[in-house]
């Protein structure tokens, strides 16, 4: 077991290192020297001397390899460099923006999970007829909606038409209702689809017939036998859902004008602020890797089949 954990953690670190390298290659090692592009802009009114100072500060003149080693060393110690646009440490920007994004994403994730379970449960209660087929088609509708459009439509409908949620100066929590919903709807769709498909699949397995043959009712079978078997595989897509959640946050913060990692990302792209974007890319890759690692380590605890296999191996 210990060996399994060590090898899993090692693999995770390897993926993370490679993700850093890819982002470095994409963002910093390419000739389109962002520092030059930006600061040569006459709007800044910087002298050639000042630009040279800045270049030196960012180590932009060094050749690629030392720069790479330098940057990776900094990343490991939590130093993500300076934002070219804001002129402050990237780590400070992240620290300022992370909490609100985590709150938004966390609430959205919870809402999405609730929505998905509601869809799965409703569509498996028999006797619903037309309503049932409508509910089952909801997830495929939800995945087809552009997130940003959904946000705008929600504002249009709930704020302007029905005036239920104020757009200007809403309360702290009140202002989160529509953004959370905007992210939750597209995220709930994949969860619901996976749940629905798994439930369908588990229901065809022989042990379900055996449970029915014991005299168990449909509801008993669903809760006692199908639920856990259908839910476990959802965990394996947790990392992917996280990526979707982050993308949803980027778009939603832009649409609703909220502060957070999302709006930071948007600004970074607009101003070609590579240091900020690279920090965000690496941090989200780290989160993805950490989530998958957690799932891999948690899965054997939840699924007895894997537990024994690991025991046998270690």
């Amino acid at each position: 077991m210990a060996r399994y954990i060590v090898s899993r953690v090692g693999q995770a670190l390897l993926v993370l290192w490679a993700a850093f390298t890819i982002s470095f290659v994409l963002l910093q090692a390419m000739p389109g020297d962002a520092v030059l592009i930006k600061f040569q802009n006459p709007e800044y009114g910087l002298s050639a001397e000042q630009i040279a100072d800045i270049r030196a500060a960012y180590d932009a003149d060094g050749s690629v390899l030392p720069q790479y080693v330098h940057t990776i060393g900094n990343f490991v110690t939590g130093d993500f460099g300076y934002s070219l646009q804001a002129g402050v440490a990237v780590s400070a920007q992240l620290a300022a923006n992370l909490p609100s994004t985590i709150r938004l994403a966390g609430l959205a994730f919870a809402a999405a999970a609730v929505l998905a379970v509601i869809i799965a449960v409703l569509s498996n209660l028999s006797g619903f007829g037309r309503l049932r087929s409508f509910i089952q088609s909801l997830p495929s509708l939800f995945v087809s909606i552009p997130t940003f459009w959904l946000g705008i439509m929600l504002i249009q409908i709930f704020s302007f038409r029905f005036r239920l949620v104020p757009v200007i100066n809403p309360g702290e929590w009140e202002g989160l209702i529509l953004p959370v919903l905007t992210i939750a709807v597209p995220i709930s769709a994949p969860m619901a689809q996976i749940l629905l498909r798994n439930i369908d699949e588990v229901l065809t397995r022989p042990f379900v017939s055996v449970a029915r043959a014991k005299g168990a009712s449909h509801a008993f079978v669903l809760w006692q036998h199908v639920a856990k078997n259908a839910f476990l595989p959802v965990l394996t897509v947790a990392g992917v859902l996280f990526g979707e959640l982050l993308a949803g946050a980027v778009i939603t913060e832009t649409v609703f004008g909220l502060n957070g990692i999302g709006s930071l990302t948007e600004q970074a792209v607009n101003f070609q602020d590579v240091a900020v974007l690279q920090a965000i890319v690496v941090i989200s890759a780290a989160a993805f890797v950490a989530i998958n690692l957690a799932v891999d380590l948690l899965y054997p605890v939840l699924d007895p089949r894997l537990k024994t296999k690991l025991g046998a191996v270690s």
Partner: protein
Amino acid sequence: MTILEAGERHRNIDSPNPLDWISAAPAAEVATRAPAKARSYTLPIQPGLIFAYFILAIALLWAVAPGLFTSYDPVQGLPGQQLKAPSALHFLGTDALGRDLYTRLVYGAVHSLTGALAAVVIGLFAGTALGVIAGSIGGWVDEIIMRVVDVLLSIPALLLSLSIIILLGFGTVNAAIAVGFTSIASFARLVRSEVVSVRRSEYVEAAFGSGGTFFKVLWRHVLPNSLTSVIAFTALQVGSAILQLSTLGFLGYGAPPPTPEWGLLIAEGRNYIATAWWLTAAPGIVAVLVVLSVNRVSQAIGKAQR
């Protein structure tokens, strides 16, 4: 043991259809013998599917021959016709510059659809090549390719495409390349897992057993049988690419104004949500309908091939 092998996990995470994301491992272990499927979705006529084909046909015609559908100009506004609500004259209303919104949607189809198509072609070719190489050669080649794929998948698609846009700059072509790049990893993963599962089949072993060489067997059995589900996945990716491109367009990284790209149309209409609701509602509904139709057709292809 095999269940834990990360390389065996089959997640096509860029797909808008989450069914492709799921790891096949736990189910595959249990479902050693396929139970007789007791499905009853066999409606002889599928109105939804016919409707989907109809929508796609119209969207394609918009892209190919926009002039057939409208007589207005997509870029030049009509004086005195600013921000008119939908009417017989402008059946989806007009924007702040007096341009007919319906006309702009029709002319925008070519940008949204060709962009999506180009993106999918990039992902399809690069991903399929990588997947076939990894799946059929195996060994360390497979190991390296799949680790790279894992890494690409660890970066959220939107961030990956934004990084590429920073590298290449804004614009329609660059946005399509960025979106296409993000789908390479999922294509590679799908193709590899298909190739591997076909390779494990008895008919491939039988082909080797009757003296077939590696390339003959690859050409005769492995490729034709692997590509079936790739086609369905490709269709699905078109829908996903339309969504991703419209997102980039909305954020302002795609086509520059006054291009009537659908995402950009929504972004432009955003300033008037309080007064001109049609400017955001109509392009969004068109995009949703097209994506829904693409997904529906992909689902039909997938079922027919199973």
